[in-house]
């Protein structure tokens, strides 16, 4: 089932003991335990990482880019998620972190907070120009885009068609750097540093671009030890960065990784921010039922509290959030990006999607409506036979999913230990 997976989440069979933690945690019911091992159904997985968070045996891991893989590039560029600024405690400044990344092997490192501000200004412009539909939904969280394609296909047209900051930054750098540094485009590697593995999926199989402008994504967790070691070794550099700060950080963009951060900079539009996978699904259900039409922009992030709650960060998210809020306050409210630059890029369609997100193929009970109805009726009958305890022992997350799997031909009623026990007693 996993042979040609484009997903970032994988199960290490040797470590999996076939327990039910991931089964219960998966919001799209994409996991089954078969022959004592968890397997992921590719079509249903949205790469949210909820399973990775709950696995007690470290049997679920995410595929992100390894640091060694960067050797393929002559010139290495890092564009870290702003989450990184919250990972190293209260005394380390963002400039020190960027500098540490240069020391551990990146030729250049660019801050994303200004691009976040740019994205916000472009979003404002888009909302001004497009009165309908409402609400638009932001595309920053790649899991939200995938969730919409799979579970809320009718909302695909409501995704605001401006690329997220990581892609915009990479696109700008890709167009300017080859000339500026004198290295052929193909030899320049532009890497995102990410708190979640879903960014990897949006790089490998982008939903709204023909090709991603990024070459990979390194997890914060993987690169953290090297950054920390480098920070420890360089008191002098820290002093330099304190006294001669090079990068101007945007206070409007700095808080982008916190829930509500994306929409905080909007001046004349009503925005609502939602975080966490369950709440995101609840609100998207409401949007599909025709609600929230008085909201201009809906910001959804499936991680709790926003990207700062990503499964691949190191610092606990409350401390990270506190630190980032300090940095937001320190950077202040003034804009660092020239609105004329934003307008020029926006009107050149430089910031736009290549194409809208398209609905994923649906998986009805049967392609033929009459047969689908028969299967749904059979499923109801099966439900009456199952205990409703949702124990997961059959390998499906709950009784309804087992009934569903049975009518689809993927499971048998005897897989239920209660049904089997009853039969054996007789």
């Amino acid at each position: 089932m996993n042979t040609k997976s484009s997903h970032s989440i994988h199960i290490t069979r040797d470590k999996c003991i076939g327990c039910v933690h991931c089964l219960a945690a998966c919001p799209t019911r994409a996991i089954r335990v078969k022959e004592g091992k968890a397997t992921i159904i590719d079509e249903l997985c949205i790469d949210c990482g909820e399973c990775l968070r709950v696995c007690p045996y470290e049997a679920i891991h995410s595929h992100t880019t390894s640091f060694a893989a960067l050797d393929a590039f002559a010139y290495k560029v890092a564009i870290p998620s702003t989450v990184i600024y919250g990972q190293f405690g209260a005394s380390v400044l963002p400039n020190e972190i960027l500098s540490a990344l240069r020391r551990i092997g990146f030729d250049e490192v660019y801050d994303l907070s200004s691009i976040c501000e740019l994205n916000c200004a472009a979003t404002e412009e888009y909302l001004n120009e497009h009165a309908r539909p409402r609400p638009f939904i932001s595309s920053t969280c790649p899991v939200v885009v995938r969730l919409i394609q799979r579970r809320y296909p009718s909302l695909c047209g409501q995704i605001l068609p401006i690329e997220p900051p990581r892609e915009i930054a990479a696109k700008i750098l890709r167009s300017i750097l080859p000339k500026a540094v004198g290295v052929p485009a193909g030899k320049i590697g532009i890497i995102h540093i990410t708190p979640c593995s879903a960014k990897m999926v949006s790089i490998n199989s982008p939903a709204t671009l023909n090709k991603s402008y990024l070459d990979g994504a390194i997890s914060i967790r993987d690169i953290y030890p090297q950054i920390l070691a480098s920070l420890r070794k360089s008191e002098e550099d820290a002093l330099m960065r304190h006294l001669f700060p090079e990068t101007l950080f945007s206070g409007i963009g700095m808080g982008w990784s916190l829930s509500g951060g994306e929409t905080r900079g909007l001046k004349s539009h009503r925005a609502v921010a939602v975080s966490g996978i369950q709440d995101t699904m609840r609100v998207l259900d409401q949007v599909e039922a025709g609600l929230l039409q008085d909201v201009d922009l809906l910001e959804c992030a499936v991680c709790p509290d926003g990207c700062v709650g990503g499964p691949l960060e190191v610092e606990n998210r409350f401390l990270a959030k506190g630190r980032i809020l300090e940095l937001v306050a320190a950077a202040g409210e003034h804009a660092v990006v020239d609105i004329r630059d934003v307008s020029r890029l926006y009107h050149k369609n430089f910031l736009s999607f290549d194409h809208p997100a398209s609905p994923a193929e649906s998986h009805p009970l049967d392609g033929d409506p009459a047969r689908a109805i028969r299967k749904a009726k059979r499923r109801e009958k099966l439900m009456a036979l199952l205990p409703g305890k949702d124990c997961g022992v059959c390998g499906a997350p709950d009784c309804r999913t087992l009934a569903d799997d049975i009518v689809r031909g993927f499971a048998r009623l005897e897989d239920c230990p209660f049904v089997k026990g009853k039969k054996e007693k007789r």
Partner: protein
Amino acid sequence: MPAAEAVFRQEFPVKGGDFAKAGVVACKIKELLKELGLDAAIVRRAAIAAYEAEMNVIMYAREGRMDLAVSPEEVHITVDDRGPGIADVELAMTEGYSTATPEMRELGFGAGMGLPNIKRNSDVLHIDSRTGKGTRLKIIIRTDGHRTT
């Protein structure tokens, strides 16, 4: 509706005043219609109509029931409630007309778009209401997507 064996039916109880469960039934109906392989646009129309109908029961009635019946050609949603009924159906069909209390409005409901919204998203809407007794809505959405009203 064709013969019983070709129709999928399911009943959902709705409790009046239970705002915490607002939208739960409409959501279940939506999931079922997706699983039955209906076109996404049809599912969305049914979801909107079902949501508005469910909210009407929650906001105004003591209790109610929603019956879903799906054939390959049609989706029927029948909503029966025991409640105050609608005194003037024609007036209630006017956009913006609402008898919602200030509390309901505070929660974002009662914009007077409920019944008109159901009408807009369905092919057939029958309203049968008795003041002081209750209301029955019959909503029909054709799966071929062609609207006749």
